[in-house]
């Protein structure tokens, strides 16, 4: 083993990476060693510091990102082969073209070469960057071994839409932006292309139904919405043996996959694949059936659980005169009809006759169109590009305008380039200030210039820069918002994706946050983005009403396919975990108990431990944790939540739960229908400590089934009596009295 020189020479002089361990600060904690992809780091047992084998280092800087004391530095180049070139084909004649533009990897040779660039990192940051946490190194490893079945098995753990996601995901700010190479300043493994290659070489397997019954057997779940979140949830529930009925307001399932993403990005055959397989697996699909908020109550009477995954379909409308003119419509309406028109060989002129329902004005009169007609698209995001490119294929001239400066606009560079190549005119720093029409139909758009100095500043409209542009059709592609009538009364909906002040400690340890803005990821803070997405995935596990879960755009507002899928999957897992039952059904005993205790001198903790021990005899899984460890991810597992605190206060004044407990209770996630127990330990009097805790839990929808206050004296005995009473109440039956001589509820108030 070669020990490390301390003073690296100038970086550009180095032909290979040079690792420097600063032994003054190296504590020998081995965080770098356990995460080094190549095993280039080891321990010097005599000095108990890390040492580097320079010959094995490839320069990925994973050690630099993970060292807690900044005691390691790497200089020099990245030893990695060139990333494969992925091609985008532009149709020679755009009009009428239905072909997919982005090409996948063509042959095994290229696929294997690209797969060999993967470092198979022990703590893969790409997995954290993927919204659904695909085990990327594992499927790449399987691909390298040409084991496509295994690759699909790995993907299936976390994804039911690998063929879709590999085409529509913005990998640059997700998995590929979080790749070790990317975080080190290089070009990442082409993860999306490899995933697509797998699905192209071997078809995505259908749901595997449990032969002898699964964890969902006997469960009857209604899913509202047949988009990505609904697909993922239905898939997971069906595979667990549950009976699933999916309600879809449109005539065909798929949601955004069906009408929202054009064929040149997502071919119909790929978009339709999930529902073909789900229907074959016995998932009941009820189309053309909109579900109103009132209907949800009815569904709850007929099903054990309801998952709302209806999306966020209300288009954002600019506050300008003329948006109610004919010829002004929202993007989803346009895309839906454009898709239908293109598959039947129609052109823009035929669009209005195609009979779609949703224009802003509701009046789809026969309008101008055809070759040379101008379609003005408001917005320059993903959807706007899809609209403009579809319009081009329908024979129109397409102009996208976005009021943000080109430097700050959230547009994918690859999509922008593809659109421009196909003849779409994209103007940034421009906005429409009004639309004019003749005979009720839009003919003219007044467009003004804007100025935006910084990314987080709102663009300002420049006076005197307005120009009039003749248009034949205006499509609003400025985004969508959630239908608030569906979320009324639901706790924390829409959910705002957040990054905790103190982020998940494992994510911190992985080093993904240490390199906040890789160039490949368009300088986006990929670590923080992944944490924000994860907060929504965890949020999908919590019921937003008794037996009601919400996932996808319906939960967080407009988002991405992969996030919706991940949330749908998580919500389905929560339903399977908690096993809700409709009224009249047999409610099962809690299978997972989370005991949270804030203990000062150890008394509260000892009561918590006693409860855990007694409840554990029922076979339930019991988890005892401190307040700071009782994160949302932990609470999501709880069928029964036991919360205990020491009593703070000055004997009789300001007596109540400890400040930390109060803070924790105030930040509780929705717990609709979750059973809860509260207890406290006290010196003189608990006063209304229990009532405060009960109120906080009930405010979040929990059902408090027992509470107990434990004063000085005979603590152990009283705690055991309380726990036994709890056990006999919540785990009725012969097994419940195991180890208990005489169950009692003396200490239990209710």
């Amino acid at each position, binding site marked *: 083993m070669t020990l490390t020189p301390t003073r690296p020479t100038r970086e550009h002089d180095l032909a290979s990476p040079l690792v420097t361990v600063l032994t003054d*600060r190296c504590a020998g*904690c081995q965080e770098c060693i356990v995460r080094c992809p190549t095993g280039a780091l080891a321990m010097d047992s005599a000095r108990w510091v890390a040492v580097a084998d320079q010959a094995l280092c490839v320069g990925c800087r994973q050690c630099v990102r993970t060292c*807690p004391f900044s005691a390691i530095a790497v200089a020099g180049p990245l030893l990695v082969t060139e990333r494969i070139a992925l091609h985008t084909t532009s149709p020679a004649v755009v009009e009428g073209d239905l072909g997919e533009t982005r090409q996948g990897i063509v042959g095994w040779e290229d696929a294997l070469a690209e797969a060999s660039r993967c470092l198979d990192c022990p703590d*893969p940051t790409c997995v954290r960057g993927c919204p659904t946490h695909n085990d990327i190194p594992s499927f790449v490893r399987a691909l390298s071994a040409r084991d496509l079945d295994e690759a699909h098995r790995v993907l299936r753990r976390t994804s039911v839409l690998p063929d879709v996601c590999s085409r529509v995901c913005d990998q640059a700010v997700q998995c590929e932006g979080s790749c070790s190479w990317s975080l080190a300043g290089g070009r990442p493994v082409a993860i999306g292309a490899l995933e697509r290659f797998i699905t192209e070489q071997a078809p995505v397997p259908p749901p595997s139904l449990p032969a002898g019954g699964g964890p969902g057997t006997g469960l009857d779940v209604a899913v509202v919405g047949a988009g990505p979140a609904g697909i993922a949830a239905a898939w997971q529930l069906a595979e667990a043996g549950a009976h699933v009925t999916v309600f879809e307001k449109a005539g065909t399932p798929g949601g955004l996959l069906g009408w929202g993403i054009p064929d040149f990005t997502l071919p119909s055959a790929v978009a339709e694949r999930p529902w073909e397989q789900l229907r074959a697996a016995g998932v009941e699909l009820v189309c053309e059936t909109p579900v109103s908020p009132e209907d949800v109550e009815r569904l709850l009477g007929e099903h054990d659980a309801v998952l709302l995954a209806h999306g966020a379909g209300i288009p954002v409308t600019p506050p300008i005169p003329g948006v109610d003119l004919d010829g002004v419509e929202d993007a989803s309406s346009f895309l839906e009809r454009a898709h239908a028109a293109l598959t039947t060989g129609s052109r823009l002129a035929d669009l209005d006759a195609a009979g779609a329902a949703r224009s802003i004005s509701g009046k789809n009169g026969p309008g101008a169109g055809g070759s040379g007609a101008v379609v003005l698209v408001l917005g320059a995001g993903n959807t706007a590009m899809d609209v403009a490119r579809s319009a081009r294929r329908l024979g129109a001239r397409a102009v996208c305008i976005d009021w943000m400066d080109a430097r700050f606009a959230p547009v994918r560079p690859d999509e922008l380039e593809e659109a421009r190549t196909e003849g779409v005119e994209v103007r940034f720093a421009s906005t429409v200030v009004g639309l004019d029409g003749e005979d009720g139909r839009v003919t003219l758009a007044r467009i003004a210039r804007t100025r935006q100095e910084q990314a987080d500043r709102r663009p300002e409209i420049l006076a005197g820069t307005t120009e009039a542009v003749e248009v034949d059709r205006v499509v609003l592609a400025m985004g969508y918002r959630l239908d608030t009538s569906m979320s009324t009364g639901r706790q924390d909906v829409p959910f705002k994706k957040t990054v905790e002040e103190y982020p998940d*400690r494992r994510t911190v340890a992985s080093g993904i946050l240490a390199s906040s803005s890789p160039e490949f990821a368009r300088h986006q803070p990929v670590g923080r983005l992944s944490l924000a997405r994860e907060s929504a995935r965890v949020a999908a596990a919590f019921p937003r009403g008794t037996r009601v879960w919400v996932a996808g755009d319906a939960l967080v507002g407009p988002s991405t396919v992969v996030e919706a899928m991940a949330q749908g999957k998580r919500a389905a897992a929560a339903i399977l*975990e908690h096993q809700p039952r409709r009224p009249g059904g047999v409610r099962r005993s809690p299978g997972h108990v989370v005991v949270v205790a804030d203990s000062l001198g*150890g008394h509260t903790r000892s009561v918590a431990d006693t409860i855990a021990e007694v409840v554990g005899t029922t076979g339930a899984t019991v988890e005892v944790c401190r307040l700071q460890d009782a994160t949302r991810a932990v609470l999501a597992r709880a069928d029964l939540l036991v919360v205990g605190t020491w009593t703070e206060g000055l004997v009789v004044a300001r007596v109540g739960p400890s400040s930390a407990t109060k803070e924790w209770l105030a930040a509780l996630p929705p717990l609709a229908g979750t059973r809860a127990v509260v207890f406290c330990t006290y010196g003189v009097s608990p006063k209304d400590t229990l009532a405060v805790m009960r109120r906080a839990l009930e405010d979040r929808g929990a059902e408090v089934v027992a509470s107990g206050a434990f004063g000085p004296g005979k603590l152990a005995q009283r705690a055991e009596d309380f726990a036994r009473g709890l056990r006999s109440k919540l785990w009725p039956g012969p097994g419940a009295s195991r180890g208990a001589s005489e169950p009692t509820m003396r200490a239990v108030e209710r």
Partner: protein
Amino acid sequence: MTTLTEDEPAVAPPPPGRQPAGAVADPVAVAVHLRPAHRRGMDEHFAPTDPARSLDVARHPMVARLLRNRRFQFLLILPNQIVFWAVILLGLLGTVVPGLNFGTAITWYLWFCLVFVMMVVVGRAWCAMCPFGGFGEWIQRRALWQRTQKALGLGRKLPEPIAQYGFLISVGSFLLLTWIEETFNIAGPGAPHSTSWMVVGIVASALVFFLAFERRTFCRYVCPLSALIGTVGAMGSVAGFRTRDRDVCVACETKECMRGSTSGYACPWYTWPGSADSNLTCGLCTECYKSCPSDNIGLYLQKPMTSVVAPSRRRFDVAWAVSVLWGLVVFQQVNATNVYASADTWLNTHLHLRYPDPLDYAGIIAAIALLMGGIVWVAQRALARKDAPVPTGGTSYLDRTSRFRMFFVPLMYGLIPVVGADFFARQLPKFFKHVPRLVPAIGAWWGAGSTRSSLYGYHLLANPRIVTVQVAVIALGTLAAVSTSWKIAGRDLAGISSRPLAVKLTAAGLALACGVAASVLYVIMHAAS
């Protein structure tokens, strides 16, 4: 690492206290497959320095509550903060009589002596309550005691080319500060405002470093007292915060003690309780104790001298720090002799400088430090086994290896008690003679004290009794140093020496010689005064 998947049952139990079996798996955890941590030789490496479990005072519930309390360190710092802002203000605004000014009186008659008592008995006790670092840290954290997540300042790391010299940076700043102190007769004590400006200077430079760098970079690398407290503090009986079960620490994938958690900050001193083998860099700030999610950190006591004798990971910077600090304290003794006075006067006349001539200041310190190096060099030439291999090292200052280093480092560690005793003895006259002046100095604050007060002229002890106490302190230090040198030489040097007994005798003899030299110098100093 959790081995659950969403579709498969658990195949192995997760680590205790992390994720329960049967839970819906975190799909990320499924994909994580960390390399196994290195454990070979771990137990043997740490066995000599791991304190006994029974010496963990944090096992006591009351102590645990105290350490867990976020206000604990704040309440330690607060009184000192008040005192030292009073020192600044009263030094500038109070009486110009040094003995009657509260600022000078408390700083030089009491505080500096107490700091030595704390370092000899505890270790970095002063660092836990230091108002200079404490002030910078409050600003850096934007909080007095709360855990905040966003630090103020640039949060830089001390660059590696500088950081590789470890405690020598602190030694350098101590030498500089002492030279300034000697030049302006700050600690004499001289004019009270000098003491004020010195404190202001320390607070300001601390603040600059706290705002430019992360954590306690100032305390760890730059603080003038850091190297002194770190080395002399090795004699102390507090081992600091250490792991209770090293396996738990090694298996911990998150290291909140190093990275911080919601309950506590990341270790400000760059110390991992999982591998701490001395109290050298434990600032006793309790943050790791608060952060640990596994309640796996204890506050341990240890037998005196353990951190001198036991560590196997010895540092070259600490060895030079010991020899340079020894040079400094000897200079401070020599400069009170008539011979020095004559030489300094002659030199100053010819160089047109004033006391302390930087040449003889640096020269004497360097000469003594190099003399120690020279003695070791001769000893290793005479006693080293020629076939003993020199371990492979790195190229950084701390990592390089040589036969000289193999002898120099352990021998200098062995001298720590006598160096510490000498520094301590050096502070005793001011304490014994003048600490009663604190009472009239506090009175003077309110206009009540004066130099006519009987306490102003009262001495707890007077010469020659003070010299007797000084020599006694040196004798104790020498005894300890002879013992530590003997043990260290027996463990670290006997195996690589051609004559094991001779090397042990040499080590003990060196310690004895240092002790005798220091004692003789005190007698000469007394005679000179």
